């Protein structure tokens, strides 16, 4: 109580000593606060930008041999070919990548295997330098199954290239213009 009285008396004696100057510490604090707020509100900000997009994959022509490394091992993406079209199935790595149930197809022409519903080694074209599998001996039912697979792939995955037999790489412009 003593203290309060003492302070009141002190304050009362001080009133006439207050100045009307602009340059008091209190004014300085308020002024800087005002300037800072004005700055933060008014400072120009550049228009927002989004992070860069992933660069587009270049459509390319594969032969069975150049397609082989794209099997998901050593950090490579997983590609597989269906009837001359190469799909990037990296997003389905669990199925088509190393250790997956369809791992045999990675980096290979998977047309025959998908058509016959078989994941066996003998479904793949053995001779990498030979002509592509024409699938001529398959029946209507198998071709129907293959078309089903193709439609699924078109929905889910990107066509990143086309597959031709070795020696036919120059013959572009026929199937190369397919839309992705």
């Amino acid at each position, binding site marked *: 109580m003593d*203290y309060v009285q003492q*302070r009141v008396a002190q*304050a009362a004696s*001080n009133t006439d000593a*207050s*100045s*009307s*100057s*602009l340059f*008091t*510490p*209190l*004014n300085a604090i*308020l*002024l800087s*606060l*005002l300037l800072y*707020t*004005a700055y933060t*509100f*008014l400072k*120009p*900000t550049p*228009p*927002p*930008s*989004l992070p*860069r*997009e*992933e*660069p*587009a*994959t*270049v*459509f*390319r022509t594969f032969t069975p041999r150049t397609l082989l490394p794209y099997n998901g091992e050593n950090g490579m993406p997983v590609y597989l070919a269906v009837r001359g079209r190469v799909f990037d199935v990296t997003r389905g790595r669990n199925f088509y990548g190393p250790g997956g149930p369809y791992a045999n197809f990675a980096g290979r022409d998977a047309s025959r295997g998908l058509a016959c519903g078989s994941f066996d080694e003998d479904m793949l074209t053995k001779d990498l330098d030979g002509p592509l599998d024409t699938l001529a001996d398959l029946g209507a039912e198998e071709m129907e199954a293959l078309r089903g697979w193709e439609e699924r792939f078109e929905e889910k995955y*990107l*066509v*990143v290239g086309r597959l031709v037999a070795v020696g036919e790489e120059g013959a572009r412009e026929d199937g*190369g*213009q397919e839309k*992705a």
Partner: protein
Amino acid sequence: MGFFDNLLLNLDASVTGLFGQWNIWTSLLATALVGFLTYQVATRQDPDTHPFLLARQAQGTAVRQPGESPVYRSQAAPHGMLLNAGLNVKDPGASKWSRGRDGDLRDVWRQAVAGVQEPGPTKGAKGRILTVLGAEKIVEHNLDDITRQINLIGQHIADQGGNRVAIYLPNSVELLATLFACAFYNLTAVILPFDQPDDAVISMLRRSATDTVVTAPGSFPFDAVVKNYPSLRQLIWVVDEGSKHMDWNEVPQGTGGSVNVSTWQDIVNDAPLDAGKTLPPLEGQKEPRDVTVFWQSKPGQQEEMVRFTAGNFVSAIAAQIFAIPTSQRMGPSDLFLPADSLANSHTLVLTLAALFSNASVAFNSVASQADDLATATGGIAPTILVATPAALLKLHTESKPALSSFIGSKLHWLQTRSLTQKGMMPAAGGLLSSYYDRTVRPALGTTTTTTTPNKKKLRLIVTAERVGADTPKLSSAVLSDLRALTGARIMYALTAAKVAGAVTQTNFYDYRVFDDKCSHFGPPLTSTEVLFRDTEQYKTSDNISQGEIIVRGPCVAGMEAALGVAGKMREDNTLAYV
């Protein structure tokens, strides 16, 4: 006393000491601070569109062909879908949910005559068609009268054995009526740019193999054409009020013996009153014919002749309608003024889009070549204006003095800040804004006449860069200044000879300013997709998409066109010149 008691005592003393310094200045500063904060919070508004929508305006394909960039499309026309190919015209009685026809030019006029079909407060409202004569006189044309003219002129040309009809007129109702007459009566329309030298006119007639010309006396070199272009069979003069009394059917001796000359007014007035009141029926109508236009590049270079199919046109019209956000669509309350030649496919497409949206359309014959917007908008207050970049640049230059005054520059800074920082159009009607109107804002579309259909203010300006035609370039800073000055949004388009309408067009809500000489041209429209093909100098890599601009889509003559100029995609996926 302990240490903390001392500390508290000191604190108390210093706080009291500090606030003991409170004086009149402190009160002023505190008021200013609170006032500023209140103002900022109270006037806070959402931007017109989400900033991220402007940060990436087009979508590229994830796979690209070697030697080419990814294919870019508008966000509104995703890959794997069809591009905007038509007007989605629903015939009467068709199910509400069925997919409409793509339509053609005939459907544009049918829609203009029928009025708004969607249920709502504006159902049945029709646009008006006006002709501005000088600064004072405005003539309104009855839509049914125009329908009658379309029928009678179309019938007349067809009866006389016409097949390919050249239209050589300034911006006018007759130009549009002839175009529709050709569409309804199975004729091929050829639109010539107006006010050309004699030999250019003859050359264009020859190249387009026309047999009929609809034109105005005084501008068409009749004698020279008859002498040099014997294939001309038929000529229709569009005579203005003042010289109606003269006998225009008389062909000068020795010239033009084989040309059948008549006047527009005679054809229309000599027909029985109730003739030609109804348009040819929809059922069993023939396939629409092509429309030929001429693209003028640099002076002295031959005009490029381009044949657009009806499909090209409707696709372009649909894309232009779609380019304006739903809440801001053109409608019966709008007055549309083309202050650029209708012989440009871009201007024509926008005008047709306005007609299809049942907006009112005004024609001003001086407007076609005018690079002075004050003249072009004299006597009328358009809400939507198509202007050339040259005219806009002139407007900008003329407004400079007003902007350099102290108050003018501060107000302009405020308006610009609202546009570029807050991403919103400054609201009209405020105290500051009305002062700005009076001091800085150029007199555009302000009118003293009382006959103007509406007193609304200008809200949209559309302008276009013409590829290879040396049109002056507008920088994004100039565009922003113009937005602030006119209070209207501006869409800047990239147009090319082989593309009806535009290739790309800046977003309706894009007010951003960049450090550039020529602004970007926005993303592709919903009727186009754009890619870049490698050139010697500019090659696409993982870091940048650039090269010669290639356009594809239903509004492109021949479905694909190379523009012959180099462009690139900026980081926000808008197209710009390299």
